[in-house]
């Protein structure tokens, strides 16, 4: 089997995640989909690392993980405080961008 | 290196604008005096330039040149020829009068009104316009010119929209709506023109590789820069369009009556006597010098448009009910004469056009400022609301009449000289156009005298019986302008001496010579 298949898988997962972000309204699920996209990227990085024979890809993936962790922490905190004030976790309810 | 006089004339009002704006609101009278002082100091600098300028010397004098954006060959290049020096002087001359005439125009409104009017802002904006206009007259770098040509729209926009005339037949609310309409219209028209010019400026850079007027003109003259005919024409049109909007030329004129009608009289003078001159000046300096062949190619169409402007503007002036709009249409007619003179491609036409710019500035200022004094007394812009003012306020009526007579180019007053030069200049090359343009002088008499008759003569209307005559401040504004009108009408030689060499240069740039008289040609 050609390791490129991993990349195909990563692309697939990424697309599914992205579509999920657009379709779901529950902010928590949206966040999960974002995590999915990040993980798909990580997979691609790891596979690249294998292809090139060096560890840089893995390092990037590592950093991605760290940043993702930070993002999740802040994001979830926002969701919680949003829920407290608006009693809802729906993205649409927070359509504050509309005048 | 000598003292950068040209930069100083532009920087002084700019700094003055900032300083005026910084005056605290409680001390608005100080702001007014500061603005007046700065404008007078600028006038003094302009006079120094006028004295230092040697009409027989190099084409561009008092030049300054510094690298600016070297990646695009943009330089900070200033220099004045005779035409530029005349217009710098005109601008510096008119601003003190505008400041003085607008002394109370931006005072806070009566208590109870919610609108906030920063008095200092009004004077700061006027000084800012002055700075930008002066640097546009001085710039010999196309890009530098373009920046200030466009930037002056910003302060003008606020002057029209923010400090407009509150007199309106349908009340203050309607005045406010009209005002913002006029300001937006002014901005949009000029921006569209400017954007098209920007494209042409970029195109010029692509073709020529730099923005320096002198270098490009030289390169074109000695053949080292070749421009395809179609390229030259497109670039010319791009430049000309922007200038024609600013000037304004029929059919791009409709912003002017709105802007002048809604602005206060001093700002209206600023528009027509100062800012619009940049348009006609730029035609003479940039269109003709950069694109001589295309200018000649476009001449027939432009002359016809100018002719339409003359007759059409005058006819519309006759039909106006609003004093300020009437003056605006009269100005459109006069700008037609200026453009006619420029594109007639004769020395008389172009000298006349330059002189016309100066004279029109002074005469319109006189007429419009007196009209403004009149309007401020009665609170109405409608001609029908006046009558018999002559009996109540003879000095006001007299100065108004002199302004009007200057507008109709009465011999002995300055505009006559320029108008006749333009007509002669046009006639020698295009007799038919010259004759039709001459009809303009009859129409000018019609709209001026009708205006005077309806407002000043006849039985005294009850609303004007208590109208005071001109006050000392107002007289200080009007009297020097009238003296200048008479002086330049009787002895215009000082101006023509400065202008003629520059016009001669321009004529040689476009490879044109004056037509020979029939008698000489026959010999």
């Amino acid at each position, binding site marked *: *089997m050609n*390791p*490129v*298949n*991993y*990349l*195909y*898988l990563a*692309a*697939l*997962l*990424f*697309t*599914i*995640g*992205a*579509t*999920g972000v*657009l*379709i779901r309204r*529950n902010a*928590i*699920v949206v*966040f*999960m*989909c974002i*995590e999915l996209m990040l*993980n798909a990227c*990580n*997979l691609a990085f*790891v596979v690249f*690392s*294998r*292809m*090139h*024979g*060096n*560890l*840089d890809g*893995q*390092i990037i*993936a*590592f950093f991605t993980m*760290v*940043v993702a*962790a*930070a993002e*999740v*922490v*802040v994001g*979830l*905190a*926002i*969701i*919680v405080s949003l*829920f*407290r004030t608006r*009693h809802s*976790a729906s993205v*649409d309810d927070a359509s504050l961008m509309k005048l | 290196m000598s003292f950068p006089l040209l930069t100083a004339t532009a920087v002084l009002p700019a700094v003055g604008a900032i300083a005026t704006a910084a005056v605290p609101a409680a001390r608005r009278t100080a702001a007014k005096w500061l603005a007046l002082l700065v404008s007078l100091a600028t006038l003094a600098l302009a006079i120094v330039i006028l004295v230092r300028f040697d009409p027989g010397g190099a084409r561009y004098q008092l030049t300054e040149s510094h690298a600016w954006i070297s990646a695009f060959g943009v330089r900070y290049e200033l220099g004045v020829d005779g035409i530029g020096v005349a217009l710098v002087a005109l601008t510096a001359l008119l601003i003190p009068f505008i400041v003085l005439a607008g002394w109370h125009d931006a005072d806070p409104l009566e208590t109870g009104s919610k609108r906030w009017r920063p008095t200092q802002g009004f004077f700061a904006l006027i000084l800012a316009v002055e700075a930008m206009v002066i640097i546009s007259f001085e710039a010999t770098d196309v890009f530098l010119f373009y920046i200030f040509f466009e930037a002056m729209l910003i302060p003008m926009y606020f002057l029209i929209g923010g400090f407009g005339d509150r007199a309106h037949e349908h009340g203050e609310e309607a005045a406010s709506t009209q005002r913002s309409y006029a300001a937006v219209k002014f901005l949009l028209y000029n921006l569209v023109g400017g954007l098209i010019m920007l494209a042409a400026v970029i195109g010029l850079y692509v073709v020529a590789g730099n923005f320096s007027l002198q270098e490009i003109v030289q390169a074109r003259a000695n053949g080292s820069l070749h421009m395809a005919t179609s390229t030259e024409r497109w670039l010319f049109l791009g430049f000309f369009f922007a200038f024609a909007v600013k000037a304004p030329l029929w059919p791009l004129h409709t912003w002017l009556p709105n802007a002048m009608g809604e602005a206060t009289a001093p700002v209206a003078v600023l528009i027509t006597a100062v800012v619009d001159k940049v348009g006609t000046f730029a035609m003479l300096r940039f269109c003709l010098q950069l694109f001589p062949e295309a200018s000649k190619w476009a001449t027939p169409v432009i002359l016809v448009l100018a002719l339409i402007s003359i007759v059409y503007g005058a006819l519309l002036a006759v039909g106006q009910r609003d004093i300020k709009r009437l003056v605006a249409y009269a100005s459109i007619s006069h700008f037609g004469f200026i453009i006619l003179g420029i594109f007639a491609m004769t020395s008389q036409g172009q000298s006349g056009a330059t002189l016309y710019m100066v004279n029109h500035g002074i005469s319109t200022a006189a007429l419009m400022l007196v009209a403004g004094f009149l309007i401020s007394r009665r609170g109405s812009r409608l001609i029908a609301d006046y009558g018999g003012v002559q009996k109540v306020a003879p000095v006001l009526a007299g100065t108004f009449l002199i302004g009007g007579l200057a507008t109709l180019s009465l011999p002995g007053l300055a505009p006559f000289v320029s108008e006749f030069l333009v007509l002669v200049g046009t006639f020698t090359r295009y007799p038919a156009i010259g004759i039709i343009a001459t009809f303009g002088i009859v129409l000018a008499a019609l709209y001026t005298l009708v205006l005077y008759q309806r407002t000043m003569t006849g039985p005294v209307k009850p609303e004007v019986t208590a109208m005071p005559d001109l006050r000392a401040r107002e007289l200080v504004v009007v009297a020097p302008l009238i003296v200048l009108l008479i002086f330049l009408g009787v002895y215009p030689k000082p101006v023509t001496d400065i202008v003629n060499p520059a016009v001669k240069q321009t004529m040689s740039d476009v490879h044109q010579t004056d037509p020979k008289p029939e008698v000489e040609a026959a010999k």
Partner: protein
Amino acid sequence: MSAQLAAYTTSTGEAFQFWVLGTVAVIGALGTVFMKKAVHSALSLAGTMIVLAVFYLANGAYFLGIVQIVVYTGAIMMLFLFVVMLVGVTAADSLKETIQGQRWLALLCGVGFGVLLLGGIGNATLTEFNGTGRANANGNVEGLAALIFTKYVFAFEITGALLITAAVGAMVLTHRERTERAKTQRELAEQRVREGKHVPPLPAPGVYARHNAVDIAGLLPDGTPSELTVNKTLRERGQIRDVSAEALNDLKALEQRAEERLERTAIEPANLKRAEEASK
């Protein structure tokens, strides 16, 4: 897994593993997107992540594989579950779309993007596979450590700062500062008396002898549920279970049976009707 095998092609074992686990990962991903309840989504995502951890291991990223399990599946997903619990486990997300054309546009974009991405990968000439054998020669963790603390040390430090900031930020966002002294029990009681509302303590939830869960509202004498009996948080989440209809039906059946037994005629049904209306 040896270094040689990681080169141009992979072993049959890995291929088998890829196809099986890859399918699982895709199913998990789809589950994340399409499950109605957030909890189910979270569980699906956890499955996908574990699969990915295995794939990392298979690709020679041993450290990352372990970290993926420990940090992601272990910590982050648990955080998600916590929040889901806080917001409401049972709150099912309606999948009905409210923005016109949003779903179709999203799907179109997704499919289009996917096709382009796949096409792009397929187009790329990826013939060279070096494998991680040499890079991992001194051990994967040591290799990563060498890079992190030399070449990427600056980025590493910055991520450290980022993490601290995130932690502080999360605290700031979720922490609610008390702006006034908490009321004592006594004060609360006095306030209740002063207002004249609910002078005795609030009634407890549950329908005695049948349901005693906290999310079941107590029934009033006429059979309608009283929201007062349920915790405020549950009320806000909309997680009150209403058993009034059920209870009334039971009661009705009971009465019927009793009547049959006692051979009485039916009593006037006014009460019943009211109860039915209330339960609707």
